[in-house]
């Protein structure tokens, strides 16, 4: 049933009234909590290296179809969190930036060539790179903020980036979409080469 114009007008006037009726937010529940969540949420989005790799995982999963389309997004956050935990515990992991740049190159190449390895191989490859991303980004909590809220924001943002990749990857059902995805893979691999160049520059 479609709402009538009168109903829409009433709802709009109610919303405007509520907006005008501004009160104190009482948002400061605990020191640093809101900031911790927002820091975690923004962290994966603020780094292009992280963004392109996460989207590449989603695109590749969409190209591979079931069960990879859901195995990869389920496996990635957990392995990434393992990497973050290693970073927090101070376990040394050499070549972090190289690993992140290599993830963009290899995942971009996999999307570009529409590689179809066995699901276990794809999961191991994605999981391997997830450790580097988690190690680099998961442990960078600004001082004075809540670690739990940062973790929640960080995991949610990473998962949403996968969701964006999968949503874009759904164009794979059309022939023009398959070509577009391969082009996106080229762009991701080129971005990875740029990140690698920056590491050694």
């Amino acid at each position: 049933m479609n709402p009538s114009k009168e109903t829409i007008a009433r709802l709009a006037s109610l919303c405007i009234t509520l907006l005008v009726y501004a009160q104190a937010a009482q948002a400061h529940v605990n020191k640093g909590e809101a900031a911790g969540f927002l820091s975690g949420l923004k962290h994966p989005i603020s780094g292009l290296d992280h963004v392109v790799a996460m989207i590449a995982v989603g695109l590749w999963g969409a190209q591979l179809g079931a069960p990879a389309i859901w195995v990869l997004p389920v496996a990635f956050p957990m392995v990434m969190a393992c990497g973050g935990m290693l970073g927090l515990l101070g376990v040394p992991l050499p070549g972090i930036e190289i690993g992140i740049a290599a993830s963009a190159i290899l995942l971009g190449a996999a999307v570009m060539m529409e590689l179809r390895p066995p699901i276990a191989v794809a999961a191991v490859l994605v999981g391997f790179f997830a450790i580097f991303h988690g190690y680099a980004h998961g442990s960078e909590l600004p001082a004075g903020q809540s670690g739990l809220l940062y973790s929640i924001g960080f995991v949610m943002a990473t998962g949403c980036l996968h969701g964006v990749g999968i949503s874009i990857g759904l164009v794979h059902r059309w022939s023009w979409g398959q070509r577009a995805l391969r082009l996106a893979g080229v762009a991701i691999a080129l971005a990875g080469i740029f990140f690698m160049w920056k590491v050694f520059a």
Partner: protein
Amino acid sequence: MSRSVAHHRAITLAFALLCLLLPARAEAHLPSIGLGPVYDGIFHLFLSPEDLIPVIAIALLAGQKGAALGRRVLWTLPVAWFLGGFIGMYSAHPKSSALTCVSFLVLGLCIASTAKIAPSVLTGLAMLLGFFHGYLNGTGVSRFDDGTYFLLGLSLAVFVVLAIFSSFVIPLHKQWTLIVVRVAGSWIAAMGLLMLGWTFRRAP
């Protein structure tokens, strides 16, 4: 506008004006009606992700296992939470955040892997979770005289959150909706892993 609608509006307006003319005591100050700690307990759950997320997680897990188990957990967890809190009120042991991380991790992994769990094990898990988190909450409220009301509000909020989330998951049958629940489990497990890292973090 028809005549009947105008008439109806006039009556509504008259009734509203009549209500305005009959001011009564608002009883808005919670201490005077004794409901303050109850609301504190309710809001505590929604403002404490370390308590809220495990409740959501066990609701998702119980929902995955069907209505019968969902109903069992629905009654077990809030009662265990209240009892744990009651015992916690009379003890003064410090909080252990490491065990909170474990509840995230265990429940998240069970959801993500759709692990086969015996009904008795899940019930035991709900009791353990409720008792432990309730105990931690109880140690925090022991200084209040009306901590029991706080725990009552908290347990009621746990009941409501459990009911909403498990009843949301139970009827899901489409493949992609079940996957969404598993992805949520993997996120919860990932949060638990990161929390564990924060707990044992080595100073730089």
